[in-house]
Every structure is written in structure tokens, then in C-alpha cells.
């Protein structure tokens, strides 16, 4: 178990009558990108807040780097909350140094690292400006630097791409992969499933406070087999609604993802489609995360 960076074991957290996290157990291995997925209110943020010791679990144990979560583990974490925020009246440089020192860095180290990262994000010129004077996008970058400046072993990003423009998103993605390659462990919470497919090695699916699926993303998808069809076409798409034993995802005017349920035959669907539209592409693929999520939830409900 030496390579487990994060271990949740039977963790439960309750707010009044509401069970935000219900008996959740999972492990995150060193050097992996781990996706915490699920709709809003599924328990992702509460789990993260317990991991960062902002909240305390009611029962169960949370271990980081092999020890119980506490002040020692806090210093080795980098946390980018979903609700971004910095001191508006404080200068960029002073603020970053302060936050890094709260995580236990010395003044000299903090200055050096912050300089490196600000230059990396082409933001060194703002070091003397008050954060409140910067644009939203710039503040996002500064916040990101604040998250990683103290060189944490484990990084937690809660919806890191929300509010970022495409260029900054790309840059962030690059840095996340670079950090992973440098041996950092990354936890990554999102309700946007499509982001996960590009980044995550492992996933944990949350729904209503419960963990409903957990494991290696590729293995999970392989276990579902090639049970989905990606169909590209031109013409009237109304026939899709009449298909039996299928679920339609990502439907648009000239594209549809068709999940085959029990009893469905891909050849039947192909023939049916030919009758109604011109087919540009027809491919049997593994299901999307979205599909896996829906599938897992419906199985949970029925069981």
C-alpha cells in the first residue's frame, strides 16, 4: 500500500438530516490523475473539504501519505477550490508569498518558486499589482500559481476549467499533465464528464453522496465492451426516437451516440438508419463516461 497517496475508508459526513457523503471508500495511487465525477451535490466538494481538513468526517478514516489527515498533510496539499478567491486589496507577490508560507515554505523559497511560476504563466509583470485590479482570467492564473507554488505532492483541483478561456484551459491542461509526469498525484473534481476522458487515469463516480463506481478508466470502459455506436449522417433524424432497445446520447442534427441495451442489434440499427438518412459514418465504440455514469446510476436505483 506504499504507493497510496489518498485513502478514504468508510467515510461519512452528515449535515443535519442530509447525508452529503455516505460510507465512501477509495484509494488514489501515486502519480495518477484521479477524477472525482458526479453531478452537482453528489458529494465531491464535501469529500475534498474533508481531505483538506476544512471539514471533519463524522466517521471513517482519511489518510494521506500514509498518515491521518491533519496539519502535517495540509502542507503537502495544493488545493484549488471551486469557488475561487484571493485578497482583493493585496498585491499579487505579497499574497502568493503569504499563502505559500502558510503552507510552510520559507520566505526565500516562496519568492523563488513564485517567480518561476509567474514567469511560466507570463504573469511576472503583475507581481506589484493589487489582485482586485486584474482581470478575471489573470486572477485565475494567480490562483493557480497559489495552488502549486509550494510544490505540493498532491494537488486537488475542483472544477479547474470553469471560467477559463480556451487558451488558458489548454495551458492548464498542459501544466496538469506536466505535474503528473513530475510524480505528483492529482485529484480532479468535475461534473463535466467529457473533460475526464482526456485527462484521468482513474475515476470515482459519485451520486447522492455515494460512490457508485471506482477504478481504472480504461478498464472500466473495456469492461463495457464496444456497445455504443457513433453515427454521423445527413437527413431527417426523427427515426432515432423510434429505435428500440437503445439510449441516445449527444444527439445533434447530424450526429448521435447510440447505446445498445440488451436485445439491441447493431446491424438492425444500421439497416434502419439506411432507410431514413444518408450515413456518413458508423462506428462501434466503447461507451462515453456520461453513458457509464447514467448506466451506473440506473443500476444503483434498480438494485
Amino acid at each position, binding site marked *: 500500500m506504499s504507493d497510496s497517496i489518498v485513502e478514504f475508508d468508510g467515510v461519512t459526513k452528515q449535515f443535519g438530516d442530509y447525508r452529503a457523503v455516505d460510507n465512501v471508500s477509495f484509494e488514489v495511487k501515486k502519480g495518477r490523475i484521479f477524477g472525482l465525477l458526479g453531478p452537482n451535490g453528489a458529494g465531491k466538494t464535501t469529500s475534498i473539504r474533508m481531505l483538506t481538513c476544512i471539514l471533519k468526517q463524522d466517521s471513517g478514516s482519511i489518510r494521506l501519505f500514509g498518515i491521518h489527515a491533519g496539519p502535517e498533510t495540509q502542507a503537502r496539499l495544493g488545493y484549488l477550490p471551486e469557488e475561487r*478567491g484571493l485578497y*482583493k486589496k493585496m498585491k499579487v507577490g505579497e499574497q502568493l508569498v503569504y499563502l505559500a508560507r502558510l503552507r510552510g515554505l520559507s520566505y526565500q523559497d516562496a519568492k523563488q518558486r513564485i517567480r518561476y511560476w509567474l514567469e511560466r504563466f507570463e504573469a511576472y509583470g503583475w507581481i506589484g499589482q493589487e489582485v482586485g485590479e486584474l482581470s478575471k482570467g489573470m486572477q485565475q492564473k494567480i490562483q493557480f500559481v497559489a495552488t502549486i507554488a509550494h510544490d505540493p505532492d498532491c494537488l486537488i483541483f475542483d472544477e479547474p476549467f470553469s471560467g477559463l478561456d480556451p487558451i488558458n484551459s489548454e495551458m492548464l491542461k498542459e501544466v496538469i499533465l506536466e505535474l503528473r509526469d513530475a510524480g505528483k498525484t492529482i485529484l480532479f473534481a468535475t461534473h463535466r464528464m467529457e473533460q475526464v476522458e482526456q485527462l484521468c487515469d482513474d475515476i470515482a463516480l459519485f451520486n447522492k453522496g455515494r460512490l457508485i463506481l471506482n477504478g481504472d478508466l480504461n478498464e472500466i470502459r473495456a469492461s463495457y465492451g464496444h456497445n455504443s455506436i457513433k453515427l454521423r449522417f445527413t437527413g431527417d433524424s426523427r427515426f432515432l426516437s423510434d429505435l428500440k432497445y437503445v439510449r441516445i446520447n449527444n444527439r445533434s442534427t447530424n450526429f448521435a451516440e447510440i447505446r445498445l441495451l440488451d436485445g439491441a442489434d447493431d446491424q438492425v440499427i444500421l439497416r434502419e438508419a439506411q432507410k431514413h438518412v444518408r450515413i456518413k459514418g458508423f462506428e462501434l465504440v466503447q461507451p462515453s463516461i456520461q453513458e457509464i455514469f447514467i448506466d451506473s446510476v440506473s443500476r444503483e436505483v434498480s438494485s
Partner: protein
Amino acid sequence: MIQKEKLLLIIKREYFTRLKSKIFIVSTILAPVVMILLLVLPAVIQTMSGDRVRQFHVYDETGAVGQGLVASDSVYYQITEISPDTLRESLMRGEIEGYLVIPHEILDGQGKTLFYHGGTAGMTVTSRIHSDVQRVVRDIRLDRLDTPAEVRQVLADRVQTEHLTISAEGEEAADTGFYMILGFIMGFIIYGAMFGYGAVIMRSVMEEKTSRIVEVIASSVRPFELLMGKVAGVALLGLTQFAIWAVAGAVLMAAAGPVLAYFTASGPETAQAAEAAAEAAAFSIPPISPMIWIGFVLFFLLGFLIYSALYAAVGSAVDQESDSQQLQLPIIMLIIVPIMFLFPVSDDPSSTLAVVLSMIPFFAPILMPVRMAVLQIPFWQLGATIVLMILTFVILIWMSARIYRTGILMYGKKASFRELWRWMRES
């Protein structure tokens, strides 16, 4: 348990960012100016309104009292032969300001002088006329009786009483009422400081909450450490502000004498004026014992701690300052109550009422310095009050930290008292 370096970092940040802020600089300069204005303005207004020349007509039946009055001030009093009925009409038309009717039997110790005026004459005018008439009539009557000079002297002499206080060490000092005023001033300064610094704490908590930075901070340090760092940082800020005022005040006092002497010395009546100025400069503030200063600072600090714990809880429960009114109300009441008792307490600082009120932790920050200024307070009272205040603070900060811990993560929601209670129990 508390991580000292981190606490220190937080204290430093809270202290220095506020020290450099505009509001601190402005309030440091403006507060004493406002205070001095409040003290000086009434006097200035009084002298300004005293400019108007006033004149009263005197209808004198005795043929002597009127002359006496005019002799004392020929502008203020003017003898008239016009009948009281006509005077009355002139007064009603607003042509004259007022008139006196002095009956002849007044010199026999009977009858009374009538003073007519439009509206209310005002305290200054009525009391002046009363004493002028009294003096003139008395002198005339004494003249009539051929009273010897010695008797007049006896009547004119004032018997003096001097008020002295004796300290426990046996030192004597004139009791000028100065200490009572000192107590009032201290009470009001602490009163203002509780509101001012309480609001600083509240806004500081709210700022971290609304800017969402608190989640990043809370993932590095314990909320309790953040709260304590904040309270300590702002307390230091308060002490700094008082220190600046104290030093500035001392420098002003020291400089006032020589400066005054310099300016008056360059005038014509050199020697005499210089002497007068030196005297004015020394217009001796009685010595303020170090105990009073220590008490003032100590009770300010303890009071600040108690109220900052309360204000922090309120700040963590709301998102906007406008939402905080309802939750602030009980705190405001607690601060205002001792101000209502300021006068009775300083008038009789040893009464049971004064002792009990000044020992209640919420009222002590204001009332104890007020009492300390006017009398030596028994040691047991001071000790017990300090212990009570520390206990109150510990309990309140514990409760407040629990509310704080939950409150800082509750966005977009205005909590009620019931919710605060629940947060405190559950967290």
C-alpha cells in the same frame, strides 16, 4: 496545538495590511480632530453667539436702582420714562428686546422687579439681570442704613471650601473634577473603539468569506488559528493607534508652552506675556497615575477581545454588511448600556450599582476605567473583574470559533440566531 509560525504569519498580515490602509491613516488623524471639535465647539459657538449687543429698558420708580444698573453697564441697561403700558406694546411689536419694571417698595424689601421679554430670554440673560438687580438694591439699602465698611466686607466675602483627595499613600491633591472628565473621555474612547474595532473584525471575516479566499486559508490552517490571528492582529492595531495618539498628545502638550511663549513674546508686552503664556502652558493637567493608564489599556484590550469574538461570529454568518444589522443588535445593546450608566457611576463610583455594573464583563471595558479615574478601586474588584472578563472571552471565542467554522463555508445565505445556535452545537 496552535501552530505558532502560522499564527504569527496571520497576525503579521492582519496587522500590516491594515496599518497601511487608508481607513487606518484617516481614522488615526480624524478621530482626535473630531474629539477636540466636540469639546471645543460648544465653547466657540457660545462666544460667537455672545457677540450680539443686547439692551433692556429700565422703568425705575425708585430713582436710584436704575442709575445703579446703568452705572454697571450703560449699554445693557437704559433708563426710560416711557410708561410700562407703552413699553409693553413696543415689546409686542418687537421694537425692543425687553424691559424691567422696578417698583419703589423694592428698597423696603418688598415687591418684586418684573422683567418682560419676548419669548424666552435665555439662562445667561435672566441670571445676569437677577444678580445685577440683587446687588444694586442691596448696596442702596446698605447705604441707607449707614452700614460700616467692615460689615459690607463681611457680606461681600466668600467663604472658600477646597476639595482635596488623599490617596492611599497619603498624597494630597486638589480635586478639580478633572478626573471625572478624564473618566468620561476614557469611557467614550473605549465605547468608540469597541464599535470601530468590532466592525474591523466583522468586515475582515466577511471579506474573506465573500472573496472566497477563506477556503484556501482553511485548507492551510485551522479556522481557530485564523480567527485568533485576526483578533490578535487587530488588537495590536488598536494599541498602535492609541500609542500614536498618546505620543502625538504628549508632543503637542510639550510643544504648546514654548510655542505659545514664543509668539506672545514677540508682541509688545514681552515679559508679562511670556510669563502668562508659561503659566497657561503649565495650566496644569493634574498628574494621571500610571494605574489609570494601565487600567485603560487593559480594559480596552479585554473588552476588545470579548466584543471581537462576538463580531467575528456575526461576520461569519452573513455575506453582506447590510444583512448583519439584525445579528449585530444584541452586541450594540451591550455596548450602549454602560454609556447610559456613565453619569450615575462616575457621580458615585462606590455605590453598589456602580460596583456591580462595572464588574459585569460586557460593561466593564467602559465602566471600570471610568471608576478607576475617580477613585482607587479595591484590588479584589479589579482582580475579580479581570478574571471574569478572561473567562467570558474564553467561552465566547470557543462558541464563536464553532459558529465561524461552519459560517465561513455557508455562501449566499443569511443565518438567523436559531441557525447560529445549531452551528455551534453541531460543529
